[in-house]
């Protein structure tokens, strides 16, 4: 998995500097955009109907432990939380399943809605891809997108 970790000034910061500075230096220092690419391997914990609870490990730009609540209906929808060393990131996503067989692949998008610690102001969006093992319900999730915090 290739990692790209680039800190870049947010447009807001650029604008702030251009217009004489409205933001505190702390806010400027905190404002970061991360190009994130991660892969998570999750294992089945429990299910009720089409609702799955899965836990596992994410590796890549934001390594940590990951928990996913997934509704495997006609479309896949769910929420996630990644706990990293610097704080947690959470959000939700939706994906369309494809194909058939022992593995169901899916693709869609996710939205980061918040976090804690270093990521307390986290916002972002990413492409969401993965496979779902229909025998043991194991999930492999890949994400690629931008995270601002």
């Amino acid at each position, binding site marked *: 998995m290739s990692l790209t970790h680039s800190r870049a000034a947010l447009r807001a910061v650029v604008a702030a500097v251009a217009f004489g500075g409205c933001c505190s230096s702390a806010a400027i220092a905190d404002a970061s955009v991360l190009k994130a690419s991660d892969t998570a391997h999750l294992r089945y914990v429990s299910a009720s*109907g089409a609702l799955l609870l899965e836990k596992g490990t994410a590796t890549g730009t934001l390594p940590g432990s990951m928990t996913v609540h997934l509704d*495997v209906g006609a479309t896949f929808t769910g929420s996630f939380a990644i706990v990293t060393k610097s704080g947690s990131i959470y959000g939700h996503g939706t994906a369309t399943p494809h*194909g*058939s067989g022992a593995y*169901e692949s899916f693709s869609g998008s996710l939205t980061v809605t918040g976090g804690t610690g270093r990521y307390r102001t986290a916002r972002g969006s990413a492409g969401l891809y993965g496979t779902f093992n229909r025998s043991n319900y194991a999930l492999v999730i890949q994400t690629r997108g931008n995270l601002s915090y």
Partner: protein
Amino acid sequence: MRRVGCPAASRSRRRHRAAAWTAAVASALAAGLWPAPQAQAAQSARLGAAFSPYRLGGRATIVFSFEIAAPAGQLPAALTDVDIEYPQNLGIVLSGLGLDVCSAPILEANGTGGCPTNSVMGGGWAVAEMRFGAQIVSERARISIARAPDEGGHIALLLYAVGPSPVDTQILSPAQLVPAEGPFGGQLNIQLPLVPSVPGAPDVAIVQMKTTIGPQGVLYEERAGGRTLTYTPKGILLPNVCPKGGFQFAAQFEFVDGTKQSARTAVPCPTRRRQGTG
């Protein structure tokens, strides 16, 4: 006779007459059963649904059934589409069913016997009625349901109905599981091809159908240690909690005469004593 439904087919294409019906027409003529044109009556519809077995948090087969009725002595219009909405939170994807796919050409050529064993997702039966002269004749057909290659990102199914008598009939109906709105988790959309009757008579009308999607009566195979093992798929996982008012189902029926009917039903929440029946 073979009829194959196609979701993209126009109504005129669906009305294409099969040459094989010539034999049936000849038989009808020989029997003096040439049809007398009669007006078709407005039809009503009734929907049924059940889980078998029915245990919250357990594995089940979903049973769908419907009946189309016309006033006594009359034939309902032929059914062209059935959309059955099913409740949220049914673990169809977790059922272990449909691990393989079957295609329409294979089904047409060889029936379900030609399909991979692990593509079968259920079965059932249907009763169709057709008019020969003043008589209404009914035919019962056995239905097999197989998983087909996905269509537009949706799980696709093929319903293959075989009725041997009074007319040798094979009907292939495509279906998809698509997202649904409101309180429902998804929709089973079945497209039914028009099955012509004798000239001058209305198309064959499906008046009853009962289908199951689940492991009931289904056996799968897997290779392990150089041997082929047979097993029963896990089945559709029911939620641990019953929604208020029970598990709601709704259906919309579209007929060749342009009319529509809708019906609703619910699988009531189980009482402690009643768990196990749906």
